[in-house]
């Protein structure tokens, strides 16, 4: 069995790597700091489970997961994050992941999660699961659901602090389209300024402020 740990915080990564090595002696534990390293590792090894942090330096785990699943559809992704908000858990699970655990959990939970997803089950940490159920029950609309693919891409561009021309270039669209999308974004997400968009992105785990 191959397990890949993707987390940009060295202490956490090393600690859990040691934990998994010790408790799952038959498994090979790989480490990656970011999406790029993760891809490299996935290309080289037949990884079964990816333990993925959301708050990564360059790209959000929420955006990395779908990309990984695109290439490796049978990959089992467990989100391992400091974010505990039901809306974020909800969105994370919608990317196609098999599990979600919080970094405040007992270390044993990580092991339970890996065993569960290897057995084909979904694993969401107990407390988070309750929150998630209440959230779904309240039928609260996720504000990001109303964004089109393009609007979301533009949103990520703005969140990363890119200039409009750069966003236009990256997405292969015109500057005017970008401007229109931004106006739509502000209206749909109910914010007035681009700065508020950035804050929204940070609060929802899409962008990390470099420390």
């Amino acid at each position: 069995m191959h397990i890949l740990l993707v987390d940009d915080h060295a202490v956490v990564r090393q600690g859990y790597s040691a934990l998994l090595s010790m408790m799952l002696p038959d498994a090979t534990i790989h480490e990656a700091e970011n999406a790029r390293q993760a891809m490299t590792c996935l290309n080289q090894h037949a990884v079964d489970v990816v333990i993925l942090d959301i708050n990564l330096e360059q790209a959000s785990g929420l955006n990395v997961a779908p990309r990984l699943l695109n290439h490796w559809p049978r990959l089992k992704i467990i989100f391992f994050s400091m974010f505990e908000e039901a809306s974020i858990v909800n969105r994370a699970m919608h990317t196609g992941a098999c599990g979600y655990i919080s970094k405040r959990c007992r270390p044993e939970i990580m092991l339970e999660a890996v065993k569960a997803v290897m057995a084909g089950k979904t694993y969401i940490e107990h407390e988070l699961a309750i929150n998630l159920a209440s959230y779904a029950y309240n039928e609260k609309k996720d504000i990001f659901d109303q964004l089109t693919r393009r609007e979301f891409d533009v949103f990520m561009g703005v969140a990363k602090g890119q200039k409009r021309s750069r966003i236009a270039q990256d997405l292969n669209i015109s500057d005017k389209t970008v401007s229109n999308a931004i106006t739509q974004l502000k209206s749909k997400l109910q914010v007035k300024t681009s700065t508020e968009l950035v804050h929204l992105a940070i609060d929802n785990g899409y962008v990390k402020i470099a420390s």
Partner: protein
Amino acid sequence: MKASKKITIVISGVYLFVSVILAAVFFVQAKRDVDAETQAALAMAEALIAQQLTFDQIESVLQHSRHLHVTQDIHAFNGDSTATQEYISVKDPTNKLTIYGAPEAENAEIFTTVYQVFGILLFSYILTLVLLNISVREKLKPLSSLSLALDQIGEGRYAVDVDPGDIEEIRSLVSHYQTMADSLYRRKQKVQHLRARLATLQERERQGLARELHDNLGQLITGIRVQSYLLKQQAGSPAFVQRTANLLEQQCEEVQSGIRQITHQLYPVALHRVGLVVALQEMLKRWAEIHGIALSCHFPNTILSMSPERDMHLYRITQEALSNIVKHAHATKVTVSLEAKDTQLILSIHDNGVGLQTLNDTHHDGLGMESMRERASLIRATFNVNSTDGTALSIHVPLTEQKEIDKNAHITCG
């Protein structure tokens, strides 16, 4: 005292005075007239007697006279010739007739004139009083509306909606009050606005710190926790225990360092005690050491006034700038200078890094840049960014207070 009452009193006083003067004049004049008339009548009566005319002749002469009459009644009057205020009488020497007259006509004439004059005076007095009272009350109405409107300003309603009427002085007064109310309103808005902005700034700061705790320290503790768990599992293996204990110690140290950084960010204790210059120097030295960036400082002023608000914001701006340099600039050398020139305090921070993508275009400011701009404007400073050779921030603060001595400013940084 009300205007109308005062006017009434004054007008009444004036009219009374005029009446008294007029009465006196009339009195004197009347007396003279009466005397003159009496004398003339007496002379005429005596002249007639002297002519020794008959009763019938005298009667026909005097028939149209208003003043003199003749009678044959020798008992009518006493004495030969009398002239009193009430009548005159002249008896002829044969005592057969008497010419007499009473100044009633004259008196009547005089009284008529007096009545007429005083009547006109009274009428004009009343007319004046009524007219003045009415018009004063009418024209001064805007003043009571104005008072009401000004009272409302105290309650927060700044519209001075008063019809000033057509008196220019009152129009001018109302117009000035409206201007004043406007500027009060705008001042109030501005204060509210500034408060909101300051609150937002503080909120962002708190959020930033919360994130720092969440992202860094929280994760460090997670790491420590898992190591402790492993320790439990491998309690029997001394080598493992040793290794893990070392790791734990290291990681705890990292937590401590993180906490210290956060507290320093939160509250640079030094600032108020030693002044901006020294606080900056110490902070810069620490920063340069941690990040291994060459630092050059220029703090030429040994005398620098203290202003808690301004100093705090300048300190934070510097912190933010340094943080940006670490995150984005990839610089190897940083120059910081704080200098008082003429009426301005100039803070400059220059790094030899990659420069910014955007310059003074505020639409594309990152969060850090925006908070720096915000702080600068809160202390009424100008904030300029130049990206031609690395990045140069320049903040100009107007100096307003008197200078005090900052006794430690001569310490230089290495």
